[in-house]
């Protein structure tokens, strides 16, 4: 795939704008759908999976005027390119690493994407920069209605949309927001978020969703329940807790500036210094420093740097992107060298 130029802004959700984008990296809605007459992907043979892919590809052609989706066959892509798609949040790690006929399709802005033959036959995704779940849902609503007219989705009057895993049945909707909450981590308050979220049955996870740990102070909050609530009610659940989380993070940031200004400026400055001068840096270390630099940008400590640059460093310093820029697969040691060079280059723009 074309991964874009690391000198240029990439991907709609990494623009670094939109509502509350200092704290909310992105808002995402995902719908799971299956065709009525073909077994779910886990059971389907290659021929059945190919039929699913063909039907969905045919249905994709006229979704919306002006919306063109580029299709990629994952079974024909090399490992590095598949990793790039995972890091762009266009496919799940599971789809990238599985086998057999499977597709990903996305538009130029990477705001719209769909996965074919993941756990479910079809996973539709709309991802936007900043906090805008409602708008993402409205766009998803139109997209799904367009595709629903062309495909017969498995549905039951009692259970709703039928999915391979019972945790997705009903609406098949997973709504999530990716948050950056460094002040809560620094002050040891992150447990509060987990408590508030789980109390209303929201899940708190790491950067890549299910099964991933929080890294670099980034957290993903999503609905756990998909059955018994309407799509709007699911979004409202996240809306009911998110403003409080954002307010709390901002309050802690203000307190940090007020009471521990030198300390926090020192932390941010050191992180910036390491990223600016390091010659070898691991993915984990880069992420930790980028988190502090991001905090510094949004608190006005690092006024010359743009949020979009930080997001770009964050994206391109991941293993898949680093290798895709270079000449194919790199050893871990070589990636650490290349990562440091790339970060330095973006910082001097």
């Amino acid at each position, binding site marked *: 795939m074309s991964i874009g130029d690391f000198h240029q802004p990439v991907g709609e959700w990494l623009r670094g704008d939109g509502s509350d984008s200092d704290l909310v990296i992105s808002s995402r809605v995902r719908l799971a759908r*299956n065709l*009525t007459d*073909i*077994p*779910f992907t*886990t*059971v389907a043979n290659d021929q059945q999976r190919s039929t699913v892919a063909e039907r969905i590809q045919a249905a994709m052609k006229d979704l919306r005027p002006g919306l063109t989706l580029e299709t990629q066959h994952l079974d024909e892509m090399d490992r590095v390119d598949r990793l790039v798609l995972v890091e762009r949040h266009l496919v799940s790690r599971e789809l990238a690493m599985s086998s057999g006929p499977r597709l990903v399709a996305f538009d130029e802005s990477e705001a719209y994407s769909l996965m074919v033959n993941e*756990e479910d036959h079809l996973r539709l995704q709309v991802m936007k920069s900043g906090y805008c779940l409602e708008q993402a849902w409205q766009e998803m609503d139109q997209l799904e*209605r367009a595709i*629903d*007219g062309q495909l*017969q*989705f*498995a*549905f*039951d*009057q*009692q*259970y*709703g*949309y*039928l*999915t*391979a*895993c*019972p*945790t997705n*049945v*009903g*609406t098949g*909707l997973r709504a999530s927001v990716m948050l950056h909450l460094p002040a809560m981590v620094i002050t040891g308050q992150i447990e509060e978020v987990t408590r508030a979220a789980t109390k209303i*049955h929201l899940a708190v996870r790491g950067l890549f969703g299910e099964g991933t740990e929080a890294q670099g102070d980034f957290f993903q909050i999503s609905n756990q*329940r*998909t*059955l*018994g*609530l*309407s*799509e709007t*009610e699911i979004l409202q659940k996240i809306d009911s807790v998110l403003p409080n989380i954002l307010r709390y993070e901002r309050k802690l940031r203000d307190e940090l500036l007020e009471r521990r200004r030198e300390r926090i400026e020192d932390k941010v400055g050191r992180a910036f210094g390491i990223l600016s001068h390091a010659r070898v840096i691991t993915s984990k270390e880069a992420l930790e420093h980028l988190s502090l630099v991001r905090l510094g940008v949004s608190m006005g400590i690092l006024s010359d740097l743009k949020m979009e640059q930080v997001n770009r460093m964050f994206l391109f310093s991941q293993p898949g992107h680093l290798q895709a820029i270079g000449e194919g697969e790199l050893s871990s040691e070589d990636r650490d060298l290349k990562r440091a060079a790339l970060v330095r280059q973006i910082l001097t723009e």
Partner: protein
Amino acid sequence: MLCEKCQENEACVHLTDIVNNTKREYRLCKECAEVHGVSIQAQLQKFKNITNITLPEFCAPSIDIGSGDSEVTDVEDCPRCKMSYSLFRKEGKFGCSHDYTVFRGSLDDLLEKIHASTQHRGRTPGRFREQDNHQTKLDQLREELLQAVQGEQYEKAAAIRDQMRLMGSK
């Protein structure tokens, strides 16, 4: 159905065996099952250990006992994808959308536990929305027909009846 081993007694044990991803199924009588080392209680315990969930918390274990035994609920396999309820519980994934129909009687506890609900309240596919609209219109006409008959407006009633017939009402 007769036991596959002795061909004499009625089979009441449905054993699903998976070796190297190959699923084999046996239908045995209680005696043959025990002779071949399949103790029903041991299997129940084994299943409980695998899932770490107590038996009353859900329905069918890896051995289903026929209707002659009231201890365990028998759940049919899906005729389309051949998924058994026990395999579904072990893997956590359905084989096809028809499983929801086949396992319906056993799913409510599980869904209640995951979602605190067993009833969908979200959107419906277009084809169902059309059906819903069609049914609503028919119900409305039926009501109007009743009122027309009660009001002795027979010409109006006949017109409504014809309209209903055109819409496929019997």
